[in-house]
């Protein structure tokens, strides 16, 4: 009788089975969360500052979002956007690195930022788990993979080494690692990149989390392995009713996986919309810029890519007013003075945008571009 017997049954969610006909069949199929359903995670005005030798860095400058049970949020951004810091701050991991964090992060109603470190630790690796970008450097090089998973298990449950090890082998099998009873004694450097990432995912799942935060989980992997890992995450999410925050720079990944997408730029969310809307009717010039500058597998080949001029701003010296205005082809002089807030697009409460242009103007511009 494994002490984990109860843990494998997926959380009861009122989600209909995924319909294969709809695009993005890999995404979780929870219905749009109505206002009545309490969200699993609610971030309100999160700000994260670092004091460095070169000055104060405002890595995250007031972001807010909500995530329902079983849903997937994709956070997209480039370097300096603050997306990784935002993800780490949910679990309070940036405080250990010397950051000042303010705002509210409500998980099932409790404000994580107000918790004592010991209470937060009980949640980390248990109800909320995290998977990182480079599994070779994110796993301890001197301990076997099984031992690291056992450590995660025993941190939250009072069980002996032997059953914990058995559980670790079960988890490795669950994530699709071949010969799990052999691989459990492997060191991280003895596994392939894909297997390492699976092992990290196994470790993250050991506490049967309600929320998984994945920071660029496939960036360091080959494209075929990437597809496997994303499929794995999808499957696990469906089976367990787990919510997923997926942080990445790759729009293709969020197109595939996310229910909603938040686009971050210079520490802010500039656009937040359901996935279909973001690709069909994006409203922020930065999003347009991203969509038009990436080469794709379909679509005409002859067109030159349309890059966004300039480079992402350094977090040490963010531009005044609208952060994107120096690179925005549609900016007006007063955009350097006013800071746009994240507000819903008229008529669509689920699509938020932080832009000083008017919505009709934006719609017209997008029609012209596409």
């Amino acid at each position, binding site marked *: 009788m494994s002490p984990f017997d109860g843990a494998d049954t997926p959380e009861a969610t009122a989600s209909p089975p995924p319909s294969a006909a709809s695009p993005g069949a890999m995404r979780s199929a929870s219905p749009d969360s109505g206002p009545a359903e309490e969200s699993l995670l609610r971030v309100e005005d999160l700000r994260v500052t670092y004091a460095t030798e070169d000055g104060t860095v405002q890595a995250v400058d007031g972001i807010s979002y909500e995530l329902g049970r079983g849903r997937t949020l994709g956070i997209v951004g480039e370097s300096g956007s603050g997306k990784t810091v935002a993800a*780490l701050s949910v*679990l309070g*991991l940036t405080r*250990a690195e010397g950051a000042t964090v303010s705002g509210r992060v409500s998980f099932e109603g409790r404000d994580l930022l107000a918790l004592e*470190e010991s209470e937060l*630790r*009980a*949640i*980390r*690796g*248990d109800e909320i*788990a*995290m998977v*990182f970008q*480079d599994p070779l*450097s*994110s*796993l*301890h*090089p*001197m*301990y076997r993979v099984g031992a690291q998973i056992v*450590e*995660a298990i025993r*941190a*939250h449950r009072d069980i002996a080494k032997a059953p914990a090890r058995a559980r670790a082998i079960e988890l490795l099998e669950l994530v699709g690692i071949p010969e799990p009873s052999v691989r459990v004694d492997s*060191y991280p*450097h003895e596994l392939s990149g894909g297997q390492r990432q699976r092992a*990290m995912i196994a*470790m993250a799942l050991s*506490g049967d989390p309600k929320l998984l935060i994945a920071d660029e989980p496939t960036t360091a992997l080959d494209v075929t392995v990437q597809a496997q890992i994303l499929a794995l995450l999808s499957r696990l999410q469906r089976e367990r009713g787990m919510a997923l925050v997926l942080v990445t720079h790759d729009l293709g990944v969020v197109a595939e996986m996310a229910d909603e997408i938040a686009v971050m730029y210079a520490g802010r969310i500039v656009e937040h919309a359901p996935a279909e809307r973001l690709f069909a009717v994006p409203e922020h010039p930065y999003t347009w810029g991203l969509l038009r500058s990436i080469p794709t597998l379909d679509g005409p080949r002859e067109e030159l890519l349309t890059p966004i001029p300039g480079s992402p701003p350094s977090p040490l010296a963010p531009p005044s007013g609208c952060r994107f205005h120096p690179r925005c082809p549609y900016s007006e002089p007063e955009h350097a003075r006013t800071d746009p807030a994240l507000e819903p697009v008229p008529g669509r409460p689920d699509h938020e945008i932080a832009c000083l242009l008017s919505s009709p103007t934006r719609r017209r511009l997008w029609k012209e571009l596409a």
Partner: protein
Amino acid sequence: MTGYVVRRVLWGALLLILVSALTFVLFRILPTADPARLRAGHNTSPKVIAEIRAGLGLNKPLLTQFWLYMKGLFLHGDLGYSYYSGASVKSLIFDRLPATLSLTVGSAVIWMAIGLPIGIVSALRRRSRTDRTAMGAALLFISAPEYWLGLIVLYLFAADIGQIKVFPGAGSYAGMTADPQKWVTSLILPWLVLAAGFAAVYARLMRGSLIETMGADYIRTARAKGLPERQVVLRHGVRAAITPILTIFALDVGVLLGGAVLIETVFDIPGIGRLNYDAITHADFPIIQGTVLLAALFIIVANIAVDIAYAYLDPRVRYS
């Protein structure tokens, strides 16, 4: 892994042979003076010199001499004979070895027990007052010459000449089996003095190594797993940080086993360092040659131990 170990041991053996050969060259060929005269030390009676010459086989061809030397060394452990002291070098060395061993092992334990925790605390409280004090003190102890520290300590605490008569003074060393209590008490001051400089070095090393390790991605993962901070620091941080330190430790011990001449002189401990020093002042070449070979042996063994320990501690190294 076994292949790795075997390779290291074989290379070590080869190195030992090379060092012995080199010693032979140095002590028999390079001195422009007559080796027999050198062997005789200050005893310059021609009869003795002739005896020595015959005994050393200096009349034989060079290659034969080399062969006899190596054979004697590796098959019989024959390190030669000191005409000055009138005893075989081997017996003299073995007489002195326990003292050096006691001194080295004791201070090694103390310096690790003091230095490492200080380094860990400093790393975790970087730039705090604790850190600055600790590193400042470390700098002091690294800079202070051991003999100076030794003399100060004797001046303050020695039973015969000290201000506060706590510990036995210089020259009171007794063998461990002969008088255990005296053995310990007479070594406490030398242990502390020898350990002081090393503890300071190791505190700094540990601090630096741990600061670097704590910035690694796997520390973030450990925290994300919800592990208590102490476990994160010790089982993840220190575990990775300690590998380079242990390897340096093995080398330091290896060198010390060749004799800590300053401490042994200040505290009048009959160890290998003193033996060597006395032999140098008397130009007693057989002893010098013997201690050189011994020191080389310890260092080679320490190096092999380091290589093996590193592979054991860091699994990534095993595939070479």
